């Protein structure tokens, strides 16, 4: 990939992985099917051929083991990038993530640390089998000691992933697989990183703030365009990093617009959207000119794929919520 032709998100991820492995011998990749097969979504294609099986490891089938191994490797100063094949299969790794990866630095007062990236595709919309479509970022966003990052475009995927790899602490890097291949952008392979604690303002507007992340950015931007045609100027914020949350950008935007819709694919209950709404209710109550509106997944299990489109939030729901919020006075 020359970086000069437009590429999609999964290619941008592959580009960033190549870049990181080329520039730092301590970067290694491990997971199920990441080697010879190049990953079930092709995110790791070419890595084994370029960097060898010592640095690109097909592991036995055990996510708990993948996480535990990665922690030991990271403590030795390697920078493991572990792939969990689908986010629905990350749960076996929970104990190692919560009890060790997130705590190693704190536990040892900085004597040891855990520069680990766990990549996992998340979210629905690709007609996949059960457990292949969940959005459970909030479980990880609430764990002290982790960073949780979700890109929403090829360029941001490239820059955020490079940052995640360079970051000296563990990063959960969640990839919205529904848009893995839906958008192409020119991505310069220049090693430029993007900050891991900052929201991106994708569109400016004074009337209402649309706050979203990951795969729902697509629908959110669509809604913003359609609303603009009706004269409603939306500010679109891509949260990008779920933890630490960039409260300042969010507060500033809602401070300006006084209205806000939070859009997510995940169920609403105890989610990142809840936290954002909570921050606004605690710290920006007087700015709010209308109740906060939330658009998200239902608080039920993601249905098997025949009904999944009935589950996933759609553009028209965002538009409806924004209009209701605008009408409020």
């Amino acid at each position: 990939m020359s970086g000069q032709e437009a590429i999609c998100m999964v290619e941008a991820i592959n580009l960033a992985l190549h870049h990181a492995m080329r520039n730092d011998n301590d970067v290694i990749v491990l997971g199920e099917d990441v080697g010879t097969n190049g990953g079930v979504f092709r995110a790791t294609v070419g890595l084994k051929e370029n960097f060898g099986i010592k640095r690109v490891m097909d592991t036995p089938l055990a996510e708990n083991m993948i996480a535990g191994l990665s922690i030991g490797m990271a403590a030795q100063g390697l920078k493991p990038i572990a792939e969990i094949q689908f986010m629905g299969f990350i749960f076996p790794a929970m104990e190692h993530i919560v009890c060790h990866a997130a705590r190693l630095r704190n536990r040892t007062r900085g004597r040891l640390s855990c520069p680990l990236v766990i990549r996992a595709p998340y979210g629905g919309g690709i007609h996949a089998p059960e457990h292949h479509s969940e959005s459970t970022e909030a479980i990880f966003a609430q764990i002290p000691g982790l960073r949780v990052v979700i890109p929403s475009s090829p360029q941001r995927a490239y820059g955020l992933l490079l940052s995640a790899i360079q970051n000296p602490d563990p990063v959960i890097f969640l990839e919205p697989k529904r848009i893995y291949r839906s958008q192409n952008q020119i991505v310069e392979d220049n090693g430029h990183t993007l900050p891991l604690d900052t929201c991106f303002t994708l569109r400016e507007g004074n009337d209402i703030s649309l706050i979203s992340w990951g795969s729902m950015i697509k629908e959110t931007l669509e809604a913003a365009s359609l609303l603009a045609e009706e004269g409603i100027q939306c500010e679109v914020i891509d949260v990008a990093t779920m933890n630490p949350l960039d409260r300042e950008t969010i507060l500033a935007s809602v401070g300006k617009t006084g209205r806000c819709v939070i859009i997510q694919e995940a169920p609403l209950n105890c989610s990142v959207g809840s936290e954002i709404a909570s921050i606004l209710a605690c710290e920006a109550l007087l700015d709010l000119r209308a109740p906060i509106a939330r658009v998200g997944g239902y608080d039920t299990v993601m249905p098997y794929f025949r009904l999944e489109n009935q589950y996933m939030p759609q553009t028209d729901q965002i538009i409806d919520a924004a209009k209701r919020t605008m009408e409020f006075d």
Partner: protein
Amino acid sequence: MNISYEGSISFTQFINEQSEVVNPLPEWALVDKVLVHYYQQMVIARQFDNKAIALQRTGQLGTYASSAGCEAIDIVIASLMHKEDVLVPYYRNHAMQMVRGMKLSEILLYWGGDERGNSSPAQREDFPNCVPIATQCLHACGIASAIKIRNQQRATVSILGDGATSKGDFMEALNVAGVWQLPVVFIINNNQWAISVPRALQSIAPTLAQKALAAGIRGEQVDGNDVVALHQSVEQALQRAREGKGPTLIEAVSYRLSDHTTADDATRYRHPDALKMGWDKEPIKRLRNYLHGQGWWHESDETQWLQHSSALIQDAVDQYLDTPPQPVSSMFDYLYAELPLQLKKQREAAISRSEKEASS
């Protein structure tokens, strides 16, 4: 230095890949009945598989996991199970489900992205397909515990892949099955691949059956393409389980003849020669040649049976394609025995959203 433990694993085969008898056959295999029955069932399974893949390729089914290569394992085990035994499958056991009485249309429904594919009356207490690798092994132990607590004479059967043997769940299951002497039979369908990862990268151990030794339980290897070997081992294991004599692990050595699923392309990682070796050993041809040799199955039987099963499968496909989707409310209706208030509201919202969409 004393020896404090010794253990070993045997390998059983009766009919080899040249369809030759290499060990004296048990009595039941000296007549045609059971073997022909196994053969017929395997043929249906293989045809069903081809059909399902075709449906997927034409956008009429979701991602599908082929059972090509594990027909013998599935058909023999399911045939030997009693109705009141409990099956705890993984996701590659359509053939078992078929023998257990599920309609083929119900099986298609599952792979068509519809939860009703898990709610066939024929499934009784059987578990649905299990996607999170190896977790089913512990469910099987829980079922077996319940059976033991209640002093019932039933066996639980759990099946898993070679890749799944690396996951803690499996080893925890073997261990508790041993220490509690549970009525459970674990079957490894060692088809040599976990998606792209070959068996050799899962474990350096020469057999997977020897994982039983860790747990202090019986373990053995059988030729998973040989219905006779399978029948002998499984029958004994099931009987021991039902009689309260404890668990067994059986490693059935097979070969995955297909891609991992329809979402996979095995040519990226598998040499054609390896696949050819797999086809040389496969169970259906092996048994057909044997039956031909015995004069128990003729070309005309084959033609007739293929016609019969094609019709059967086509019926199932029609029934599947004619099944209207579940209502939107079904996303909520089975989550809890009693739906909480907030979810009732979400349910209403989902219904009116879908009505709005339908009318627009």
